[in-house]
């Protein structure tokens, strides 16, 4: 038992002077005899007993995820076309630290890029949200959904369709719009690149700008962007 008492003196300069004062023999004796420290501890536990418990009974009451929570992945469905916003640029796959995103693309009829497969291995993902930050169009997002435990490994292999389903289930409507505005805001909307630099732009942007696409040779009909 430490028989000292801290005295904190604050003077005009705002500096706290902390000194220790030895308490007297009788005071320390009284402290020892009446177990002052143990009594203080017991008072603390008794007062805590009447406070509201912090426990949340999980399956019964669920905590609302905080805004910007990084949960299950989704591919944003473009409300105009009803298809994924993803253009298959592969930036998300390139930045992914655990290399869990696979993208397979091919050339379409009008020489545009078509995303054939977009796959995420959830068991390897570390939810860093780099893919969301890297995406120029806000096409891949992390939803607030976090209860997706399952019994098979296959259930954690997300394909393009399941990722689009995730969007419809968890982020469709004003919530998704709010998130796109505040958390997943694509860089395209805030930063401009010089005109002469080649950038990825959605289809609508391409048609509005007089930028002719570079004709692709016959050997590159099935371009593949993959990390493996």
């Amino acid at each position, binding site marked *: 038992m430490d028989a000292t008492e801290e005295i904190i003196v604050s003077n005009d300069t705002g500096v706290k002077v902390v000194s220790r004062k030895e308490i007297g023999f009788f005071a320390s004796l009284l402290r020892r005899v009446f177990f002052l420290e*143990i009594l203080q*501890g017991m008072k*603390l*536990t*008794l007062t805590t*007993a009447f406070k509201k*418990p912090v*426990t949340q*009974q999980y399956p019964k009451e669920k905590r609302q995820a905080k805004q910007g929570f990084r949960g299950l992945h989704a591919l944003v469905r473009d409300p105009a076309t009803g298809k994924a916003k993803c253009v298959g640029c592969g930036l998300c796959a390139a930045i992914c630290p655990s290399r869990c995103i696979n993208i397979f693309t091919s050339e379409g009829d009008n020489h545009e890029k078509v995303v054939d497969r977009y796959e995420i291995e959830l068991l390897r993902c570390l939810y860093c949200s780099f893919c969301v930050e890297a995406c120029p169009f806000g096409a891949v997002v992390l939803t607030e959904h976090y209860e997706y435990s399952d019994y098979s490994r296959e259930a954690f292999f997300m394909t393009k369709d399941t990722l689009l389903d995730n969007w419809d289930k968890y982020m469709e409507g004003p919530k998704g719009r709010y998130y796109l505005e505040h958390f997943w805001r694509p860089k395209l909307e805030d930063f401009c690149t010089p005109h002469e630099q080649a950038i990825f732009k959605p289809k609508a942007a391409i048609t509005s700008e007089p930028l002719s696409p570079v004709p692709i040779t016959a050997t590159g009909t099935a371009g593949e962007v993959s990390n493996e």
Partner: protein
Amino acid sequence: MNIGSAIELKGLLWDIGVIIFKIAIVLAAVMGHVAYATYFERKVIARMQMRLGPMIVGPYGILQPIADGIKSFFKEDIIPANADKPIFFMAPVFGLMAALTTLAVIPFYDGFIISNINIGLLFIFAMSSLGVYGIILAGWASNSKYSFLGSLRCSAQVISYEVSLGLSLVGVMLMAGSLNLTDIVHAQQRYPGGLYIIPQFIGFFTFVVSAIAETNRTPFDLPEAETELVAGFFTEYSGMRFALFFMAEYTGMIVMSSVAVLCYLGGWTLPPFILKLLPFLAAVPGIVWFVLKLYACIFFYYWIRATLPRYRYDQLMSIGWKVLIPLSLVNVVITALMKLWFTNSHV
């Protein structure tokens, strides 16, 4: 066979029937209390740590002890290959037997006692010392270093604290002039204060500390220190045998609390000054006061457990030998001198 001996036989059978009935009631009541003592311990400690405690089985988890009992009954009974099997089987039974036998001499209210013997307190000491055999045998028979260390600690601890436990109650014995627990309560009723805790506060303090050590509860739970010894002496036990140790520990807690209530807190009676102030309280049956005081004591056990960390082994020994035993010896001397002085002045 003549008529007289037939009547005698009938009376004997009646007595035996009454005793068996009493034993059944006491056992059922105490076992129910043991089961729900675990539940309330979990609840009280949970609330003191801002948790909820058991909530799933039944409303507010009220059926949790029953679920625990069923679970431990149907669990696999694992016996270590190198265990000393007969002793391994016997040890938990031994511990529980010693704890339950003590209940025979505890008067729950005036006249309700299984066996009203004159050496009630001495019998309780003897049986609580015997309960240590269950622990030591369990530790020895398990053939495991954790169990063995736990049981060694337990034997040293209980032997040290047995002394101060006995000495702390000597003051009560001196004041009451009896070892019979019913007589002790009656003597408290005659005493002006109504409670022996007032003159015997030193004895009460040493008794409470030694009782916590004697029942191996926190902060003196070194025999089963789970952070150091896995589970101490019952590391190798599982299923129902483990539950028997658990029951023995909680029965010991109830017995020690009952002794505290009977010897210091007036048992089933209320102090006269409270009865004078609130006369209608005399209509309440004595068992209610006994049980309320018992619950307060058991709550104190939980409260201590929720607050204090475990003492170091040398601290435990120095508290026992350097603080509690001298204190209780001083208490004995003071009580004896006061008694001598008062009785002389009266005569």
